């Protein structure tokens, strides 16, 4: 029963879509669901908007999960976030105020084709499921954004896991999200994307080692966010620019979002650090999501203030 949806378990794409429809129906005062386009294989690209429905101009925060198909803890977190945000609206006066001031756009599964393929066929699939002229399937959806596309840390070989695609935004999923965010870039104050695994909180740049202009603000918010994560269960996350904290990669969503005017742009690499890797068990969904929720709330509050 959807009223007893289990957030401490991974779900198939069909189950996630059913859950999204259910949330749209049962929390109509706070939630609205819409499609921003279609995937390569023709699936709807669904987004939930969370926030009080008032006529005023509202700032926004964007969250996406499941850019890489095998990183299942991402979509699990996005669902957890929606559930917790609705709970917080009714139980936390401060958060109720936040939802009157801003909207959250949540895309639980960006790479829907890849997630479906990972669930049913190849658990460790990473890329999309597009196919162009060559024999290999898929593009790395985090190398396909129009920002220093296909330079360091990306590959022009269609058979590589970091294939950047035949052109920037070749993937309909990437193009649809980019179009949606670009249209609302003045309202969106934070962009957050959820991946696994490394236990890191990363910000731009990914494609080069230079510091971003508002480094102090972004670094300060990241520092507080990882402290919030640690306060929950003692789990340590590293944080810093993606290029030096993780590795160089071009065409990433956080660089694109930042270059298009979104001041706080982060990629979370959730649990763990390799014991289970992509196969994080159901039992660790709750602590992972609970600690990440604190970080997201922290960043949201930071993004609402002047820095």
């Amino acid at each position, binding site marked *: 029963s959807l009223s007893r949806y289990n957030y401490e378990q991974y779900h198939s794409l069909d189950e996630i879509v059913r859950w999204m429809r259910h949330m749209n129906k049962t929390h109509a005062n706070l939630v609205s669901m819409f499609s921003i386009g279609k995937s390569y294989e023709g699936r709807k690209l669904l987004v939930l908007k969370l926030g009080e429905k008032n006529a005023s101009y509202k700032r926004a925060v964007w969250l996406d999960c499941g850019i890489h198909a095998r990183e299942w803890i991402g979509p699990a977190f996005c669902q957890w976030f929606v559930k917790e945000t609705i709970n917080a609206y009714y139980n936390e006066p401060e958060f109720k105020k936040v939802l009157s001031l801003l909207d959250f756009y949540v895309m639980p599964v960006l790479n829907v084709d890849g997630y479906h393929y990972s669930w049913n066929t*190849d658990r460790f699939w990473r890329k999309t499921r597009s196919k162009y002229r060559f024999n290999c399937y898929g593009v790395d959806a985090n190398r396909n954004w129009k920002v220093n596309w296909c330079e360091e840390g990306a590959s022009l070989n269609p058979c590589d*896991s*970091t294939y950047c695609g035949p052109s920037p935004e070749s993937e309909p999923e990437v193009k649809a999200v980019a179009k949606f965010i670009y249209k609302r870039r003045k309202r969106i104050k934070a962009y957050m994307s959820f991946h696994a695994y490394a236990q890191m909180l990363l910000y731009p740049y990914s494609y080069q080692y230079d510091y971003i202009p508002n480094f102090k603000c972004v670094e300060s918010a990241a520092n507080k966010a990882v402290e919030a994560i640690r306060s929950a269960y003692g789990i340590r996350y590293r944080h810093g620019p993606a290029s030096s904290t993780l590795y160089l990669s071009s065409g990433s969503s956080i660089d694109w979002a930042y270059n298009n005017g979104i001041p706080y742009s982060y990629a979370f690499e959730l649990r763990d650090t390799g014991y289970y*890797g992509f*196969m994080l068990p159901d039992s660790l969904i709750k602590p992972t999501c609970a600690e990440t929720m604190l970080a997201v709330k922290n960043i949201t509050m930071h993004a609402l203030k002047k820095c």
Partner: protein
Amino acid sequence: HLYNNRYAGDKVIRIVPKNDKEANELKNMYHQLQVDLWKPNSISSILKDTVTDVHTSSNSSRTLLDYLRKANIKHKILVNNVQKLLDMQNSSRPTRHRR
């Protein structure tokens, strides 16, 4: 078995090359064996001291482990049998929630 038992005997191995020579040899090995690289995302990112996590098939893991032992390269098996772990995680769910 989930996924038609395709991951039977697969392993996930962690290797950290301690110098440039080991890093280059490891990159060649990964290319030859066509491993599923979990960390980092790309073989070209592998340098000295880079933590590399690779998912290999049963056959490839034998070849890789033989090579690592002969070359005296430190390594750790993170997951000894991927299929077993996936099936175990599935069976720990209530029956009605099992895939």
